[in-house]
């Protein structure tokens, strides 16, 4: 009897981009009926490797075997023809089409366009694996999770039996992630081979059968999930032991630094993006802000920073450390006016290269983004920014070829270190961070948590918009939950549960929301 072949076998795959080796001599296998978690830090080459199987890139060296046969995958079309479907982080759907019409787009060129048959087959797929998908719904009406479901059904419709999911849970609530896992298990039972890219350890342990680990583009090894622990996996991933606990120092005499009242930000369609938000932030405390992304977090922080125009009637009061009880009104002030009023407000925005930094500039020029205007000279003074850049590079361990290397060429973690370094150097009284660890690897994430806790000990009022509930619960003192642009409760992070927050993220709690 012939030996059963693995669904995918990679042999000695190498891929380089310029001087950067993204994957070096990687060999691995995935079986049918198996869920493999591909684990690794940022820049470890997970996505690159998977993109080669999905036909986005072509390997410089090495071969790919499907069911034991060598294959040549030159395009995503080739990949699908071989039964390989990849679900990317950014969905590729036509917004104005319904689910069924989007699935029909995946039909072969010589097939007859028959929407009814498409619908039938798609419905059969949904029933088989227990997908919750309304085939008549338009994509623009769908939630992120529904769009993801549609993407999966689409590749299944095309006959994919090897599925690759690139960080599928990054945009999902815990409940939605659980739902996705149920479907994945059903597909595994049906004999599909599934690869899931992630760097969330608890998910790896919950869903996978086996974990393969990449580090700096190289294959470190694999372990059966039942034998794995979070600390062992981290060690393999990082290459050294990492303490996996977040320090939370108890708040020391908290003083109100920021008081927000009735903050409403009108939206383009008349539906406010943020509605009557009221809360206080105290010095020496981390206030977590939870919510599914796009529920008013951005509007909240940007209004405080002077980047949005809230509806009149709101109040954003800032209490300076030396100003006694007389607050300064931030509403209506531009970012420059806020700075010129001597207010130390630091903001690490969500869009690091599109708002917080200038991608084409080096570290030095980015350091002076907010301070270049100082002094009467018409010329910029690059000495102080240069020193600051040196300091940030040394203290946060930024890996860059040089201070003048465009920051857009740095890896995600290093970009964030540059941004956070600059904002902390401004000696903040209020520090706002949006998704400060999104896309960062475990080491950098813990560095950021530590820095935030240090700021808190200095008496800074920290606002932390986050998406991982575990982290919010461990790091913050209080958690403000946003749902549909409303404040849906402010909870004590020491007593709140994940389920409670998850629930408040998706459903307005009557009575409280109006308060």
């Amino acid at each position, binding site marked *: 009897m012939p030996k059963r072949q693995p669904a995918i076998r990679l042999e000695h795959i190498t891929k380089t*981009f310029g001087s950067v080796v993204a994957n070096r001599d990687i060999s691995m296998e995935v079986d049918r009926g198996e869920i493999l978690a591909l684990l690794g830090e940022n820049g470890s080459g997970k996505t690159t490797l998977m993109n080669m199987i999905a036909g986005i890139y072509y390997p410089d060296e090495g071969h790919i075997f499907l069911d034991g046969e060598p294959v040549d995958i030159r395009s995503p079309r080739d990949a699908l023809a071989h039964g390989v479907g990849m679900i990317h982080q950014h969905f590729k759907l036509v917004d104005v089409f319904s689910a069924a019409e989007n699935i029909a787009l995946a039909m072969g060129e010589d097939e007859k366009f028959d929407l009814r048959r498409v619908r039938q087959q798609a419905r059969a797929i949904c029933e088989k694996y227990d997908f919750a998908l309304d085939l008549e719904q338009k994509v623009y009406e769908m939630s992120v999770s529904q769009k993801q479901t549609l993407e999966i059904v689409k590749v299944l419709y095309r006959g994919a039996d090897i599925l690759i999911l690139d960080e599928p849970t990054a945009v999902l609530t815990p409940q939605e992630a659980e739902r996705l896992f149920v479907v994945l298990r059903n597909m595994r039972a049906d004999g599909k081979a599934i690869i899931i890219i992630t760097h969330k350890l608890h998910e790896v342990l919950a869903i996978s059968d086996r974990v393969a680990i990449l580090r700096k583009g190289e294959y470190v090894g694999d372990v059966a999930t039942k034998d794995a622990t979070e600390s062992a996996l981290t060690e393999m991933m990082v290459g050294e032991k990492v303490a996996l606990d977040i320090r939370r120092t108890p708040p020391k005499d908290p003083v109100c630094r920021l008081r927000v009242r009735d903050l409403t930000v009108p939206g383009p369609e008349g539906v406010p993006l943020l509605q009557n938000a009221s809360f206080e932030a105290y010095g020496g405390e981390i206030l977590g802000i939870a919510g599914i992304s796009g529920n008013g977090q951005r509007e909240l922080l940007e209004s405080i920073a002077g980047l949005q125009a809230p509806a009149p009637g709101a109040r954003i009061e800032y209490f300076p450390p030396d100003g006694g009880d007389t607050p300064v009104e931030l509403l209506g002030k531009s970012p420059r006016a806020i700075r010129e009023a001597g207010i130390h407000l630091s903001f690490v925005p969500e869009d690091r290269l599109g708002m917080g930094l200038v991608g084409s500039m080096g570290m030095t020029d980015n350091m002076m*983004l907010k301070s270049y205007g100082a002094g009467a000279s018409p010329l910029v003074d690059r000495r102080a920014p240069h020193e600051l850049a040196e300091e940030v590079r040394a203290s946060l361990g930024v890996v860059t070829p040089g201070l003048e290397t465009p920051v857009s060429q740095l890896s995600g973690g290093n970009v964030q270190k540059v941004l956070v370094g600059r904002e902390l150097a401004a000696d903040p009284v209020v520090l706002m961070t949006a998704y400060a660890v999104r896309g960062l690897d475990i080491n950098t994430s813990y560095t950021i948590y530590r820095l935030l806790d240090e700021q808190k000990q200095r008496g800074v009022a920290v606002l932390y918009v986050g998406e991982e509930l575990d982290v919010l619960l461990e790091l913050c003192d209080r958690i403000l939950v946003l749902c549909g642009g409303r404040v849906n409760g402010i909870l004590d992070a020491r007593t709140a549960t994940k389920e409670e927050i998850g629930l408040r993220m998706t459903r307005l709690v009557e009575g409280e929301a109006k308060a």
Partner: protein
Amino acid sequence: MSGHLSHPAGAEPLVRIARREGVGFWQKVLVRAAAVLLALVVDALFLFFVTGLNPLRVYGVMWGGTFANFTRFSWMLRDLSSLLCVGIALAPAFKMRFWNVGGEGQILIGGLVAALVMVQLGSSLPAPLLILAMGLGAVAAGALWGFVPAWFKARWNTNETLFTLMMNYVATSIVACAVNIMRGKNSALGTLNRASRAGWFPAIFGQRYTINIIVVLVLTFAMYAYLRWSKHGYEISVVGESENTARYAGINVRKVMLRTMLLSGGICGLCGFMLVAGRDQTISTATAGGRGFTAIIVAWLAKFNTFYMALISFLLVFLERGASEIASAYSLNEYGADIITGVILFFILGSEFFINYRLIIRGIHKEGR
């Protein structure tokens, strides 16, 4: 079968493209030199087989277009300085990602105001004051022509590409109309102030355009410093990269946009003034001569480095002069000469691809190890 299994690379695509990084300065120079050489070879084939001329002699004539004697060389400098001047004017706007394709109109309107001042005040103002008035008037007119589209964009987010382009036609029509009025009953508008020479630049080293060359030389250094070391230059870079980042940094995007377009249009106006006072001593709809558009290529290819812009301007002017020289020397029609310069430009632009990317041909990289 086993042989097939061990060489599945036979199915690999023939040529793949990969990004190249860390290309050294001399490597770039080498690639570009190779491109010019290759272009000359292709041109030689064209010349030999199509026209039957001796390519080397044609190249000699072409070279002579710029370097035959001192006067030729000074003409080259004159043309270079006008083209470079517009490039310098456009650089800050394009660096801000404001697509100012209205250089043509800004030059024309500046030139027209200079010419009007020259005629109207030529007999009443002493020479230095007259030239100052012409210059100021031209700069103000050019600045206004740049300001209008910027203001509309800042206010209503209109599309500046279309707007600046339209402003060209408005300027051309105004100039055509003014020229018709000024020429009166004459068949054409001849040299202005022919007798008094009022408002003409004085000749230095025998040429009136020497002043143009000096002014542009100063501008080259000044604009380099402005973009690189001034706070304004820094603001322009940030706004060009991302308006969101600029707002986040507290930069007043509208103010920077208006200010930069005043500057850009103003320098174009200055160029118009210099064309009138230093070169033509008259005005026509052809005064700008397409420089407003050619300069876009100059500014972009040099990535807004004014010294590179000077090099590229030189190349374009050299080719243009060489082409017209060939055309007259061998009574080739213009198209033949255009093909020759076109091939050279094509190869130089094409070499950028080989500086940024490399080709991987099937199989070669394996044996190479």
